[in-house]
C-alpha cells in the first residue's frame, strides 16, 4: 500500500531522509512537466523544479497537514514559475509553439501501455498534437488547463494554487477549452 503524502511529510519532518526522497520522486515528473510547458526550456524547467522542491523542503515545517500536499507544492511551483516568467518578461506574451522549442524531454517519453508500432505512431501523433494545442494557449490558460485536466484538480484547488478568484478560474478553463477545441479541429481532429 502506498504511503500517503501526509504520512511522508510527517516522517520527513521527523528527519527521515527516504521520506524526503520519496516526496521528491513522487512529484518530480508532474511538477517538471507543468513548469516545462510554462517556460518551454528544459534546462530552465529543471532549475525551477529544483528551486521549488528546495523551497518546499525548507518550508516543510510550516506546511499545514489539513491542506493537500500537492496543492501546497503546486502553489510554490506556480509562484516560482510566475516570478521567473516575470523576470524574463514573458508573462504577457503568448508563447508560440514552434519547432525550435526545447521540448526534448517531452518527445522522448515512451508509453509502455502501447502495444505495437502503429499504436505507438498514433499515440505519438496525438501526443504531439495535444502538445502543440496546449502550447498555443496563453500561459494563464495553459496552466489552469494542465492543473484541471492533467493533474485532475478541482476548481477550488486551482484557485488556491494560482491565487485567482474561483470565477476567473472557471472562465479561464471555459475559454481555454474553446480555444483548444478550435486548435484541434483545425488540425483535422473530430472531422
Amino acid at each position, binding site marked *: 500500500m502506498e504511503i500517503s503524502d501526509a504520512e511522508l511529510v510527517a516522517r520527513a519532518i521527523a528527519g527521515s531522509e527516504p521520506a524526503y526522497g520519496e516526496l521528491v520522486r513522487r512529484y518530480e515528473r508532474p511538477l*517538471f512537466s507543468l513548469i516545462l510547458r510554462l517556460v518551454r526550456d528544459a534546462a530552465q524547467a529543471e532549475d525551477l523544479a529544483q528551486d521549488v522542491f528546495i523551497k518546499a523542503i525548507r518550508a516543510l515545517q510550516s506546511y499545514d497537514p489539513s491542506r493537500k500536499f500537492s496543492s501546497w507544492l503546486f502553489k510554490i511551483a506556480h509562484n516560482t514559475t510566475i516570478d521567473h516568467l516575470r523576470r524574463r518578461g514573458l508573462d504577457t506574451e503568448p508563447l508560440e509553439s514552434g519547432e525550435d522549442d526545447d521540448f526534448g524531454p517531452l518527445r522522448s*517519453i515512451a*508509453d509502455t501501455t502501447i502495444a505495437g508500432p502503429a499504436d505507438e505512431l498514433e499515440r505519438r501523433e*496525438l501526443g504531439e498534437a495535444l502538445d502543440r494545442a496546449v502550447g498555443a494557449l496563453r500561459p494563464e490558460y495553459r496552466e489552469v488547463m494542465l492543473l484541471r485536466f492533467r493533474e485532475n484538480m478541482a476548481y477550488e484547488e486551482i484557485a488556491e494554487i494560482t491565487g485567482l478568484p474561483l470565477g476567473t478560474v472557471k472562465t479561464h478553463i471555459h475559454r481555454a477549452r474553446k480555444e483548444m477545441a478550435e486548435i484541434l479541429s483545425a488540425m483535422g*481532429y473530430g472531422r
Partner: protein
Amino acid sequence: MPRETTRKPAFEKLPAAWLEAEARGDDSAAEEALASLMTRLPEASPRPGFAARVLRQSGVVKARRDLFARRSVQWAIAASLVLAAVSLLVVPGVVKAVLSPFAGSFSVAGVLGGASQLFVLAGRWVSAGAAYWRLASDIGSACSLALSKPPGALLLLGLSIVGAGAFRGLNRLMSPERSAFHAPSH
C-alpha cells in the same frame, strides 16, 4: 498557430468524443472527455539523479566529503607533523641518555671492531640491493626494447586506452549523477 492539415488522423476517438461534447454544449461530458484525452499528453522527466540533487542542495543529505577535507583530520595531520619536528629536536638527547649507563664499557678497539662489522654489513646490504636493481634494469631494458618496435608501442597504447575506458566506466558507475543527459526512463 497550429499548422492546418488536411490529413485525418486515425487515432481520433478521444479527440472526437471531446469535440462532439463541446459542440453539443454538454459541459460535464466535455470535461470528462477532455480529462481522458489529456492523459495522452506526454509527460516529461528531469534528468536522472534529480531527487538526489535536490536532497543534497537542500541540505537533507550531506555531500560525501574528501577525508582530508575534514577539519579533524587536518588537525590530526598538523599535530603529527609538529610532534615529529619536536621529536627530532629531542632525539640526540634521548640517545645520549640511553647510552650513558654503558659509557664506561666502550673502548677504541671495541668501537673500531663494531664499526668494521657495520661496514661489512652495509657492503652486503648494498650488494644485495644492487642485485635487485640489476634485475629491475634487465626488465626495464626488455620492456623498452619491446616498446621501441611498433607492435609493442601499439600494445601499450591499446592497453592504456582499455585501462582509461575501464577507469571511466567505473567512475561513471560510482557517480551516476555525472551523466548529465539521458534517455528518460518510463
